């Protein structure tokens, strides 16, 4: 199974893997969503969507559907 940002639990971190060009909106890349960067899931909205991530020091909210497009490798387990 492919692991994506949508699979992260709160507090978990991962490193973004290489992804196919053109699948993510340019704005996400501009905000630092680039291969090799670290992503942490900070908070999940009460209805499970959207999610709130910290990527490379920038805090952004994205919807789950988009998060499912960002592949990553989990590096740190949730503190729970």
């Amino acid at each position, binding site marked *: 199974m492919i692991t994506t940002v949508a699979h992260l639990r709160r507090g978990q971190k991962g490193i973004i893997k290489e992804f196919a060009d*053109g699948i993510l909106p340019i704005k996400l890349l501009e905000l630092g969503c680039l291969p090799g960067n670290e992503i942490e899931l900070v908070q999940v909205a009460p209805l499970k969507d959207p999610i709130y991530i910290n990527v490379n*020091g920038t805090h952004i*909210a994205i919807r789950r559907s988009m998060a499912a497009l960002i592949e990553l490798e989990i590096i740190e387990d949730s503190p729970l």
Partner: protein
Amino acid sequence: MSKQIKVALIGNPNTGKTSVFNQLTGLKQKVGNYPGITVEKKEGVCKLPRGVKAHILDLPGTYSLNTTSLDESVVVELLLNKNDKDFPDVAVVISDVENLKRNLLLFTQIKDLKIPVILVINMADRMSRTGISLDIELLEEKLDTKIALVSTRKGTGIDRIKELIADYKNLSIAPNVDTTVIAPEYFEKLKATFPKEDLYKLWLVITQDVNFMPIEKNPINITASFATKSKSELKRLQQKETILRYQFINGILKQAYKVDINAAKGLRATLDKVLTHKIFGYLIFFVILLTIFQAIYDWSSYPMDFIDESFASASEWVKDTLPPGVFTNLIAEGILAGIGGIVIFIPQIAFLFLFIALLEESGYMSRVVFLMDKLMRPFGLSGKSVVPLISGTACAIPAIMATRTIENWKERLITILVTPFTTCSARLPVYLIIIALVIPEGRFLGLSYQALTLMLLYLMGFGAAILSAMILNKIMKIKSKTFFVMEMPNYKLPLVKNVVYTVWEKTKSFVLGAGKIILAISIILWFLGSNGFSDDFENAETIVTENIKNEGFSDFNKSNIESTMASYKLALQDSLNSKVYALDQAAINDSLRIKEMTLNEKATNQEIASYKLENSYMGYMGKAIEPVVRPLGYDWKIGIAVLTSFAAREVFVGTLATIYSVGSDEEDTIKNRMAAEMDPKTKKPLFNLASGISLLLFYAFAMQCMSTLAIVKRETNTWKWPAAQLVFMSLFAYIVALIAYQIIK
């Protein structure tokens, strides 16, 4: 006049760009925390050392020159168009120290356009707390620019910016990054086709429409003929460019930027945990909303009562002091009544803007968006629609402008179309006065009926907005890719100065903007109401006096005089019995006679005035539309007020004030006057439960605001949508009001 240096301020949202602008120009403006709050064009003049002046343009916040929204395209179009009168001599890129890496992306793009550029690193006061250290000299060298380290919170570093601007000719214009390496062959071909053009500029022009289709056409139009690459290929190249730039930036920051990870960042995490909690998050949001409404309805009633009384007495004073005549009447009944109708709004609007400014400044608004996004989506709206819908309770105009941050066109269009349903502050005076007139004073579970009615009206406004959004979402066939990316800015303690200024600025622009219309309409109404063309109008005095002689006063006046006389008689009798005054029967009879005479005179004047009004231009207009409004329970006077409200709703009360006070001596405030208004046929109060509810519903749903229609036209670039709003909302309002009146009656 010497030539001014043209400066453009550019930067990511939430970097304090507007604060820098305020400090440079001294012209204080709004600083928001909700991404994209700076949407209007803002300009100012700044005095530089050695007597030079600079013209400063504050551009909308943008993350890059890859356009994805209307705001961003404003920036790109200016920077690509050398012939634009605002094309800058020097660009000042504002960044904040905590997000320097991301901010530098935009910087390198502007640098590559070969525009002289200065880098401002803001929020320097946060460096020690967040454990950041910077090697400014190294950064200047590697980025090939000049840097000003600034703290707008503490006001340091501004002089350095001014010096650098004055010295802009010494800035290097060499590019940072060679973009052509992302697709060497492609750029070779470009160069061969357009040998004279700058390649990077050309690249930006070509890729401008890839992610965003601007409504207006680009100033440089060479793209259409050069579609050698497909959109998706171009998108891929844009991503390559972004990665390339980040590689460049990372290389530099590795040496020049150190951050101590152990420095505290706990507050943000804790606040986020509470404010976006699945129970507390909504609870806090609800409590905040309740507080806002409480402030608007309760706290602001004191200054409002004061304003109401002041204007009533000012009007009286004018009439007593100035010689009687047309001019005096114009001042007392046209102008003063009109201004009073505007000024009375100020407390409520100020409170509303105060709260909105606080929520935006603190960073809380973004959390609301985060909380609400999923809830809004089934209705075709986005979390970002919440801010426009809430701002809509102040005024639909800024609310519709705030929709610019919604990237998805369909979501944005739906938000624009439904926002006018939310209860704006202009509806408030209409609601307040009608509720006070027709809703009884009792309490239900400790809450007054009147407050509950008001809340119900607000809920209905939101309900109508949400419901029509759902319908629009179903019927509109607009294909539009959904993507939602929102920065969650750090929490900040709102700067008192910024908040105070926002409240001042917004209130002022409302009063002046809407005030002009209201005042103009008041004067026109006064003229139409105090002039007529028929003989009946000319001879009103003789006709009415004659009528009274023959048939006596109208029933309302008759009973009014009787009851007043009765209570007066009792009062006199009391004082006679208690022997406080040395009164005899003769004196009492005298006093009674005088009282009756004054009352008769007043009643006569009132009847003359109302007869005149009925036969004035306005009377004819009102009677012409009476058949249309009669089924809703309105007479021709209310009909006129409803009609004029199509210019702006807040005119309603002012119009009635003008209509009722024309020619009569204005002792009673407008509310009492309205309560005394009788239906000539049924002889019952005209403002009763049925007609009152009908009026409330009509105002809740009808599209009665010219300014909103104009702004919708501007934002959608077609008359189609505002026309649809006008027809649909007003028809809906008419039908709902009709049904309500016919049922309750």
